């Protein structure tokens, strides 16, 4: 998949999304944490309130009953014989929580009881835990809760040893349940458990009656009940234990987990939905905006593309965005200037073509018209020589010869100029040519014309080019002709034709091992009539190479020469290849 940041559209949309999502995520996290913390704080507060209330209640419960027994004890001590029995009875009746009051001898035998039918005088209670406890405790001893077999209620005993007796009371803890019930608030249930895990009281009366031990549930595996506040989290409940001072009991507050979790989950849900919805909206809006901008850009692209293709009359229209418009303005100005320049160039071009044509026509017609008088100079000079030789002395004959020779030279020059001009005029008629064959046939011609010459010729085969056959023939004739001429003084002349590749381009060459030339003047070789040798050494007017250069130029190629005096020369040229030929 393409890198979305490489497009404007992609960047915009992705940026929008990131700008949305990241803050939302951060906000979500913060909000949810805040919610959780608040909840937790609220719960903690509630718990504190509850535990405080319970503590106070428990303490007062304990205190109340201890006070009661203390009062009874004091009264008994002061009035040992005074209706102790009925006093106990009435106390038991008055105080609903007090089920039974006993005064025992130090050996455990019941001395007085508030309920004869339940516990007779003289009964041996030495095996009861309250007895043991009282004997071994300095102050009041509170027993662990138990189920009173007579009442069926959860009961605790408190007992204290005095100098010669023990007082004990059976107290029901049903009130706790009522109290807890009142304390209960909607999401929590409150219980009081002893340090063995027995539920002494529960805000849910049904559970209080069942007298469960919390250790029965599997998830209370640990030793929960130390002296510190502990918290357990399970799937269903959050449970906290708070010790109730002075009693060895614990307040247990259970909060239904789902009730706690619900708001958190809800808030997450809301945040998620909000993020999602806003996300969709933003993406939609983002895409819409991105598309609009993109369309403007696309339009611009298309229009500028038109201009690039050469349609300089195209004016780019303004868009709805300022930034583009400045660009467009500049672009249009640029196009205008290009158009102007192009027009000027075309004009200049036409002018040049016209001038060139005129010059060529002029040079052609001049050369052509020069021929006729030249013809007569030659003709009559010869006639003079032949018909009047009797009347001419040697001097005269000599003069005539010079006249004839000069006229003939002039003829050659004019012919050369016309040849050059012919090469420049006219349409190129390009087709596929076998250069190798052409070169070979030119070699053969030269060999036929000069059978006495011994020239070794090396021609690379199957060299094809796309060019004008006539012009190329003229060019090759000249190049090979030159090589032929300049190897004239060699015993074993060698001429080579081939093609090589330089920088991916084909370079054709004709080399010889002839007289060569001074490379310092190599650049002049292609000037018309420019020669680097005396005409007494090698004949020629110097038009040949400039002819070749014109032919090569007309084919869009380049030509250059390398040479060394006495070591031969090499001519290299390129042609515009067919694949480049677009026009």
């Amino acid at each position, binding site marked *: 998949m393409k890198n979305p940041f490489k497009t404007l559209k992609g960047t915009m949309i992705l940026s929008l999304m990131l700008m949305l999502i990241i803050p939302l995520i951060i906000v979500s996290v913060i909000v949810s944490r805040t919610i959780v913390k608040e909840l937790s704080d609220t719960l903690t507060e509630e718990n504190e309130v509850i535990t405080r209330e319970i503590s106070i209640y428990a303490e007062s419960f304990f205190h109340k009953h201890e006070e009661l027994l203390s009062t009874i004890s004091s009264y008994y001590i002061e009035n040992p014989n005074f209706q102790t029995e009925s006093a106990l009875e009435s106390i038991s009746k008055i105080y609903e929580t007090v089920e039974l009051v006993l005064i025992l001898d130090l050996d455990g035998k019941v001395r007085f009881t508030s309920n004869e039918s339940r516990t007779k005088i003289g009964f041996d209670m030495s095996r009861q835990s309250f007895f043991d406890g009282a004997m071994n405790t300095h102050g009041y001893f509170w027993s662990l809760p138990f189920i009173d077999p007579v009442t069926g209620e959860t009961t605790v005993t408190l007992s204290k040893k005095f100098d010669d007796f023990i007082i004990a009371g059976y107290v029901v803890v049903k009130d706790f349940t009522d109290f807890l019930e009142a304390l209960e608030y909607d999401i929590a249930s409150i219980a009081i458990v002893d340090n063995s895990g027995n539920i002494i009281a529960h805000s849910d009366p049904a559970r209080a009656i069942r007298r469960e031990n919390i250790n029965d549930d599997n998830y209370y595996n640990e030793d929960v009940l130390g002296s510190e506040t502990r918290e357990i989290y399970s799937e269903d409940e959050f449970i906290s234990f708070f010790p109730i001072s002075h009693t060895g009991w614990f307040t247990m507050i259970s909060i239904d987990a789902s009730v706690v979790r619900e708001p958190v989950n809800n808030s997450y849900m809301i945040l998620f939905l909000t993020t999602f919805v806003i996300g969709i909206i933003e993406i939609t809006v983002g895409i819409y905006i991105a598309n609009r901008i993109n369309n403007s850009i696309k339009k611009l692209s298309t229009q500028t593309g038109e201009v690039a293709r050469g349609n300089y009359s195209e004016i780019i229209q303004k868009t709805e965005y300022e930034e583009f418009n400045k660009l467009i303005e500049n672009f249009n100005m640029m196009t205008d200037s290009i158009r102007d320049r192009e027009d000027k160039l075309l004009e200049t071009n036409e002018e040049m073509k016209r001038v060139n044509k005129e010059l060529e026509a002029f040079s052609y017609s001049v050369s*052509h018209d020069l*021929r*006729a008088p030249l*013809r*007569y100079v*030659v*003709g*009559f000079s010869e*006639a003079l020589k*032949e018909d009047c030789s009797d009347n001419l002395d040697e001097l005269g004959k000599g003069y005539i010869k010079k006249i004839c020779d000069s006229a003939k030279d002039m003829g050659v020059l004019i012919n050369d100029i*016309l040849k050059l001009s012919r090469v420049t005029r006219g349409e190129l008629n390009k087709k596929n040519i076998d250069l190798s064959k052409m070169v070979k046939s030119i070699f053969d011609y030269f060999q036929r014309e000069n059978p006495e010459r011994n020239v070794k010729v090396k021609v690379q085969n199957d060299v094809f080019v796309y060019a004008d056959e006539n012009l190329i023939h003229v060019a090759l004739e000249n190049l090979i002709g030159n090589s032929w001429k300049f190897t004239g003084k060699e015993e074993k002349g060698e001429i080579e034709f081939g093609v090589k590749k330089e920088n991916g381009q084909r370079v054709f060459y004709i080399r010889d091992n002839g007289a060569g030339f001074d490379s310092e003047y190599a650049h002049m070789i292609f000037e018309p009539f420019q020669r680097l040798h005396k005409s007494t050494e090698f004949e020629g007017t110097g038009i040949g190479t400039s002819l070749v250069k014109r032919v090569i130029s007309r084919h869009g190629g380049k030509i250059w020469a390398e040479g060394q005096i006495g070591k031969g020369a090499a001519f290299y040229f390129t042609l515009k290849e067919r694949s480049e030929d677009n026009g």
Partner: protein
Amino acid sequence: MGKNYTSKNKTILVIEDNENDQFLIMRSIRKHNIANDIFVVGDGIEALDYLYYRGRYKDSNHTAPHLILLDLKLPKMGGLEVLKKIRENPETALIPVIILTSSDEEKDIVSSYKLGANSYVRKPIDFVEFAEAIKNLGLYWLILNVSAE
């Protein structure tokens, strides 16, 4: 039809407008004993009059020429047109024509017209070339010196 060929003298008709060329051509022909009778006209129309015995030559009793030397650049009617007319007319269609050219280009132009089997000779007449042309046309009699009758 034309006049009878009783005369043993062979004639060459030279159609050339330039005086100098006329002179040099005639000199050359004479010098090499090519033919006895040379008739020179200076333009195409006169040439045709001569050939078809009309105009100035209506009552002439000259024989038809055995060879025509025709220059291409003629005033009034151009050389090619003259050639065409010569070839079209059955009276003269078979008379051999040698074109006098002043350049290779003119040679090309003529061949592109495909106006019959012609030979070319460059001005001024180069004898070797001329001889070659004669040979090609089978006109050997031109070289023989025919005595006047």
